């Protein structure tokens, strides 16, 4: 058709023609796509360094086309600190799952937020350990089964799911904390906007921004991709309400 324009296509920041290794419906795929769109729109892809954790969050090493640092499990926030301190004019983000950020990496994650490092942190919360086969995460819901909590998470044995945005909200330094999801087109747009703000804050030298994105894990939840969306809405979003927890971006 003569007048038609291509109004949506896959971001150029992903290696052309490459299919990712993520499961069907996995929102890591969605989020990496959105990050890429944001980097293109802000024209910063060629000065961006990603610091990725270990887990499913670390599965895009052969997928994205801008600088990629594979970090030790839990340490991406510390690595990102090191990168940014050495190259402050570059854009540095860490990309971490719930185990990486809130279990093994808890100290590094909170310390980087507390120091107010001028980085962007993408925290992907699907309430389970994906890559290693479905073990319990710090954010696993009460009653939710995991391979290491086969009867389901019990408060008296395992404690309660951790609310990271709210935890970080007790610190003075962080500038922007928002929790979003990718379960509907509207929420995908909100996630992209949040990611964009989190990167813009870094460009503007504002300080530490984190976007917590509540996602599904069809494979380890034992549900189809579509059924996982229902579980996410009915359960995950009740435990982890979406919204802005803190936004001092304009201050």
């Amino acid at each position, binding site marked *: *058709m003569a007048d038609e*324009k291509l109004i*949506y296509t*896959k971001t150029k920041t*992903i290696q052309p023609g490459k299919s990712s290794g*993520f499961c069907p*419906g996995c929102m890591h795929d*969605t989020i990496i796509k959105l990050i890429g769109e944001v980097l293109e729109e802000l024209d910063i892809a060629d000065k961006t360094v990603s610091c990725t954790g270990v887990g499913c969050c670390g599965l895009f090493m052969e997928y994205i086309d801008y600088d990629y640092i594979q970090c030790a499990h839990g340490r991406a926030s510390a690595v990102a600190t090191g990168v940014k301190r050495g190259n402050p004019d570059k854009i540095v983000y860490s990309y971490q799952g719930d185990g990486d950020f809130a279990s093994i990496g808890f100290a590094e994650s909170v310390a980087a937020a507390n120091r107010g490092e001028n980085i962007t942190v993408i925290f992907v919360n699907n309430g389970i350990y994906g890559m290693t086969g479905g073990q319990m995460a710090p954010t696993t819901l009460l009653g939710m089964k995991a391979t290491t909590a086969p009867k389901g998470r019990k408060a008296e044995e395992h404690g309660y799911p951790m609310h990271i945005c709210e935890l970080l909200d007790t610190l003075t330094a962080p500038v922007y904390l928002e929790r979003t999801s*990718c379960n509907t087109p509207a929420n995908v747009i909100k996630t992209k906007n949040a990611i964009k703000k989190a990167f813009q804050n870094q460009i503007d030298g504002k300080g530490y921004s984190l976007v917590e994105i509540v996602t599904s894990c069809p494979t380890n939840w034992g549900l189809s991709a579509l059924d996982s969306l229902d579980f996410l809405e009915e359960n995950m979003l009740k435990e982890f309400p979406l919204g802005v927890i803190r936004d001092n971006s304009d201050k």
Partner: protein
Amino acid sequence: MARVEIVAELCKSCGYCVKFCPKNVLAIGKTVNSKGYEVVESVNDDCVGCCSCARMCPAGAINVYK
């Protein structure tokens, strides 16, 4: 006038695009790509170019033309 184009080799048949299309343009088809996924296809001409499908698609397998 709008239409979508599915990049067959990137489609993972998750069904998000089918669920969220307001005009029921999309459905899981019968063609299988090299990874074994049944590729999504357009089944009518009612696309309005809202891009809901393309936004939801984790794999970036949808090009939208308007």
